């Protein structure tokens, strides 16, 4: 297990390098001169040239990429064009907000989605099942920012129960979490339902019943644990969804998170800040993907043994093999809500 985690950690390195490269390329080809942006309109061409030289902007592509990576390794994400502060400092105050919202959304969605999905599967074709499926469909098709607006209309404007914006206490989290998690709840419910339906029909579940096992244990230990593999995949994907939802809905609720920072930075063409925000969000997502992969191995001995049996050079190929199981799961689950 430890070896598995270690290997999976190693495979994260190329992914992170790749992500930083893509972001660098995007920003490299973006029009506009960072030096001019930093100095503002009043700067003389000489000042701009001097700053370009200082920032290394006159270097070639590879030299600049190299410098950028060197900075990254030292934790230096550059300076914000607007506040002139280190990008990392600005992000550091915002990241916890977004991360907290995204994790709360994920937890909320899992706690609601999995039990409802199971119930719906166990009582297939019942009234509860039909209701669940209708709501899941609505959840997937409704844009989260629109749901947010509707919630504000209802709970803040009409009823006056909840504050429409800001993030100053627990009560402020209610609407953001509800609106962002709707898609995740719906998708997790659907996946849990279809995955449970699939597993309940398996012979080994019948075997467990034939042993005289309690129905509750049959459902949870035998069926649900096996059904968890595709559910885990979708939880990972939904975390990305929640993170994305947070980025958008921070705008609606005026939440001072990374998403709002990033969107404001885009409007101000504040490239270092954009770059840094995207990178940090991507790292966060990659870590979640890693955790999901480790959880797979925890649940499924077949994935575990793929790692322990073959050692050494073959590691990358094996990672792909392990990912194949999750691919299959993801391929059979809804694309809807996968934003």
């Amino acid at each position, binding site marked *: 297990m430890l070896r598995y985690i270690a290997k999976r950690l190693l495979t994260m390195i190329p992914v992170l390098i790749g992500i930083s490269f893509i972001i660098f390329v995007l920003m490299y080809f973006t029009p506009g001169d960072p030096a001019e942006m930093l100095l503002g309109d009043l700067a003389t061409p000489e000042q701009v040239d001097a700053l370009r030289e200082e920032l290394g902007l006159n270097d070639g592509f590879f030299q600049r990429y190299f410098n950028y990576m060197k900075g990254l390794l030292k934790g230096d994400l550059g300076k914000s064009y607007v506040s002139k502060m280190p990008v990392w400092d600005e992000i550091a105050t915002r990241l916890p907000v977004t991360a907290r919202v995204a994790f709360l959304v994920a937890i909320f969605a899992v706690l609601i989605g999995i039990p409802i999905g199971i119930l719906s599967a166990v009582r297939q074709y019942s009234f509860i099942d039909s209701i669940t499926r209708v709501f899941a469909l609505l959840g997937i098709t409704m844009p989260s920012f629109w749901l947010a607006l*509707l919630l504000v209309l209802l709970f803040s404007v009409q009823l006056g129960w909840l504050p429409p914006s800001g993030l100053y206490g627990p009560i402020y989290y209610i609407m953001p979490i509800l609106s962002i998690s709707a898609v995740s709840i719906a998708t997790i419910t659907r996946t849990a339902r279809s995955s449970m339906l699939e597993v309940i029909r398996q012979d080994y579940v019948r075997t467990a019943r034939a042993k005289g096992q309690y129905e509750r244990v049959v459902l949870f230990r035998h069926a649900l644990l096996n059904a968890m593999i595709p559910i885990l995949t979708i939880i990972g994907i939904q975390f990305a969804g929640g993170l994305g939802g947070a980025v958008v809905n921070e705008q609606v609720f005026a939440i001072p998170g990374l998403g709002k920072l990033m*969107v404001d930075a885009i409007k101000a063409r504040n490239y270092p800040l954009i770059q840094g925000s995207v990178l940090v969000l991507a790292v966060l997502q990659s870590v979640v993907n890693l955790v999901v992969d480790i959880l797979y191995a925890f649940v499924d001995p077949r994935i575990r043994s793929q790692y322990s049996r073959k050692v050494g050079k073959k590691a990358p190929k094996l990672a792909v093999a392990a990912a194949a199981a999750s691919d299959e799961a993801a391929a059979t689950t809804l694309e809807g809500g996968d934003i």
Partner: protein
Amino acid sequence: MATMTETPTLDMMTDVRRSQLAETWKRLRKNKLALAGLILLLFLVLVAIFADLIAPYPFDKQNYDAVLQKPSWEHLMGTDEYGRDILSRVIHGSRISLRVGFISLTAGALVGCILGAIAGYFGGRTDNLIMRANDILNGIPRIVLAIAIASAFKPGLTSALVAIAVSSVPNFARVVRAATMTVRDQEYVEASRSLGASHARIIVSHIFPNILAPIIVQATLGIGTAILLCASLSFLGLGVQPPIPEWGAMLSSARSFMRDYPYMVIAPGLAIMLTVLALNLFGDGLRDALDPKLKK
């Protein structure tokens, strides 16, 4: 596809496929929800095509005598801050959304299918390389990726298109790769390989027709996601810009008036939801019809 007549077996294959198509349609017809989705979708497409005829007013006609009006017989969904008829704008918005969904998805699907098929067909190092690249794109939440791409251009229709197209590639590549791997080693593929057909030809004429089902399903659902994504980008001000009547952009400007004129945020949101709902209902039904094993 019908021109492939090198060997009798290929003819038989097309026949089999044709009868599969008939079977699929038969099953689809029995699924009421899927049919409802299909009808709703056709309706929305017709609305988009004939928007000029259907819309009671031109979408950009301002009328300062009638700003911010509540829904009435003259303006069924009211008017916005420039006195423009909201219903007309929503009707015209279907053009933008369907077009963005369709174009960006086609582009993304094309690239995704090619990459996925190459990865699945050749396997080994090629597969590894493509799937790693996929992992990298998957490491970035999709809307964040789209925002990052959109931010590199001037905000507008084109930047939204590119951003959505690129961010839809990984999903397609993954689905197509998995499907390709299941048909890659089947007899008819090996038969034509032994007949000396080129790799490209095998992929195009033998692999693709046999993995069309998951591609079509993915595409139907993917258009829905693309439309949602476009609305989100425009809502953030990074996609289609006002005065173009894009639904997300309309919601964005309606927000400022929401407190006093709540009806302004209803129609565009409903329009997004109905469109995505139609695509999802149809896509789900199509999936069940194409793969009856999955049902029940």
